[in-house]
């Protein structure tokens, strides 16, 4: 099972059926689930979405997400309990050097997400692997998602003409207090896995193997709270550090058709041909003033978000379910859901707002203590969309000056373009970009 030469699934979508059955098989080995393709449990897990909280007792170190496909893994598959976003500066002064970097990253992704024994070297040399996962690397649901920033193109004349049309250096919004040391980058790597050890192991592996081309700029780790299986079997969205469910209105990431229009860049988007199958990644490190939030009246907390805190149901149907759709047309004055409530501003639930849909994939972070002796906690916000301008940027512009701003402060992040997937074992990340750049230089 851990042989890295295992035939690799070539399903185009990271949520392919074979993977799901395989994942279940792995869980069954741990005694958590009985595999039966038609059982209720299997159906439920097959429909799990990015926003759903991981369920206690279902994760296994053998969980494996295929790294091959038209799209990269780590975008539409459900979040495991741990995530990390690392931003790098890229040296790559030539196209060959850049290709070499993409090949190196692909090789490491192929090894780390499949697993296998770490190579044993002469003990007089430093070991090939940090060893923190032991001599056998297990996949642990690992995904490694590589994206590139505007500066990668802007600083390289031979690459600049190929920059995706909406890719730009993130600019501050009114409530931002951006710390230059936590912003931007030539390349971002999102690493997700069941355990933090696996994400750290992957990062250290990449730093060790790609140090010729990559310099780490900043990173932020986070996690998704694991929940007990729900009584009614319906998935629940994970809670953020403000205690509210986050992602109840996220589009269903198991719906491949919806993902094609919302998340993945297609022919109709007018992007450079190499970019097809990619996505825009918006990253924001958003500090939460949790002490202050905890001293805010319960009713005001609910009005700020527009949802009940306990169930996540919209305020106009407090007995409902978090997935119920609020009826704003019936509440034009905002008597039930204030007009400036977070969920109402972010998504008015009308046809215009449908053009601004994004897929959020956030993680909660807890870093330490501020200079003032307060908790440094918040949200590592990551969102994917086929159009950055009508996606994250439009949504954030609608949220500017929302009442929630008193309790949150975006301090870092950046915009990146998630490269198209690694199509097969002979392919590598960024191959279409490199080919296009080579063609243009001739």
């Amino acid at each position: 099972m851990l042989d890295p030469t295992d035939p690799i699934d070539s399903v185009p979508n990271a949520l392919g059926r074979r993977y799901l059955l395989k994942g279940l098989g792995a869980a069954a080995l741990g005694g958590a689930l009985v595999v039966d393709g038609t059982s209720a449990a299997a159906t439920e897990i097959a429909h799990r979405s990015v926003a759903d909280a991981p369920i206690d007792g279902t994760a296994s170190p053998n969980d494996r997400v295929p790294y091959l496909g038209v799209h990269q893994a780590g975008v539409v598959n459900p979040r495991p309990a741990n995530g990390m976003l690392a931003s790098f500066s890229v040296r790559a002064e030539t196209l060959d050097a850049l290709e070499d970097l993409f090949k190196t990253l692909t090789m490491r992704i192929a090894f780390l997400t499949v697993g296998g024994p770490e190579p044993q070297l002469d003990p007089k040399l430093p070991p090939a692997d940090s060893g923190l996962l032991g001599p056998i690397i297990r996949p642990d649901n690992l995904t490694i998602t590589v994206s590139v920033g505007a500066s990668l193109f802007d600083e390289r004349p031979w690459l600049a003409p190929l920059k995706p049309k909406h890719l730009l250096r993130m600019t501050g919004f009114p409530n931002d207090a951006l710390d230059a040391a936590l912003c931007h980058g030539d390349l971002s790597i999102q690493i997700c896995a069941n355990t933090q050890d696996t994400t750290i192991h992957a990062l250290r592996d990449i730093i060790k193997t790609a140090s010729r081309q990559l310099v780490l700029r900043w990173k932020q780790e986070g996690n998704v709270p694991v929940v007990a299986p729900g009584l009614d079997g319906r998935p629940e969205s994970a809670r953020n550090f403000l205690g509210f469910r986050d992602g109840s209105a996220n589009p269903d990431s198991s719906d491949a058709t919806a993902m094609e229009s919302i998340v993945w860049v297609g022919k109709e988007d007018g992007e450079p041909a190499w970019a097809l199958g990619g996505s825009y990644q918006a990253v924001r490190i958003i500090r939460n003033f949790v002490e202050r939030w905890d001293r805010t009246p319960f009713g005001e907390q609910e009005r700020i978000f527009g949802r009940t805190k306990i169930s996540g149901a919209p305020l106009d149907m407090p007995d409902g379910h978090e997935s119920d759709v609020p009826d704003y047309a019936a509440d034009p004055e905002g008597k039930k859901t204030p007009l400036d409530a977070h969920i109402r501003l972010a998504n008015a639930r009308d046809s215009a707002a449908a053009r601004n849909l994004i897929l959020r994939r956030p993680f909660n972070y807890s870093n330490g203590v501020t200079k003032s002796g307060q908790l440094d906690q918040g949200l590592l916000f990551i969102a994917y969309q086929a159009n950055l301008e009508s996606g994250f940027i439009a949504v954030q512009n609608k949220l500017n000056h929302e009442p929630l701003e008193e309790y949150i402060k975006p301090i870092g992040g950046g915009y990146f373009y998630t490269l198209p997937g690694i199509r097969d074992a002979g392919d590598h990340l960024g191959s279409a970009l490199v080919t296009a750049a080579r063609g243009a230089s001739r």
Partner: protein
Amino acid sequence: MRFHGLCGAAALTLALSSGAFAQQANLDLVEPVAEYKLYVSEQVSKLVMDTTAFTAAVKAGDVAKAKALFAPTRLSYEAIEPIAELFSDLDAAIDSRADDYENGEANPEFPGFHRIEYGLWEKNSTDGLAPVADKLLADVKELDSRIAALTFPPEKVVGGAAVLMEEVAATKISGEEDRYSHTDLWDFRGNFDGARKIVDLVRPLIAKKEAKFLKTVDANFAQVDGILSKYKKGDGYVTYDKLTEADRKVLATAVNTLAEDLSTLRGKLGLD
């Protein structure tokens, strides 16, 4: 789902009954809020006067005089900070910090008091500060002209006292507000006076029912007063770095407790 249903129903009943309660509370608060508005107008008039002198010194290139006027000029602004939310655009123009701008002090958009503070203390110069000073004075005057027509929602005024304590606890107690001049104790004076003013105005409304609460709040304000008076120098205060570790600890706990206690003031007054 039954559980959620019950909770939802309970929340609804609570909201209905507190609606009536809130209406009464709003009536009771008419007078205190009107009085508070008067207080704010007086503070802003003083702010305009002081800022005129301060910016004149900056524009005249008189570094020593500008330095001497910086902290006392801010006092009246810091006193009205509980309601800064009501003029957040001007607050950003007058009192934002370098952290609010990418690349901090190097960002040409960094405005207001702290931009001038940076020039005066870090560069010991008024070079390039004249347009910043002009803009500051214009913004302060704009604030003055806005106050009369500004609506003061009672929950914002009462909530503002708590919010200011939150700000002190989150981003002032560390000394990061006046990081170049270290005149933070002046600001604290303004902040605590301004918050206390609000508590005093609503005091009669809860004096009987909440005697114990008020006693705790008063005790914490008194502790802060005690610390501040220890560091008095002339008309003002010594620099923040002179504060002993022990006193900083007392100040921090007093501020945190005040933030914790004052966060319940709105609810105690029946405000939603």
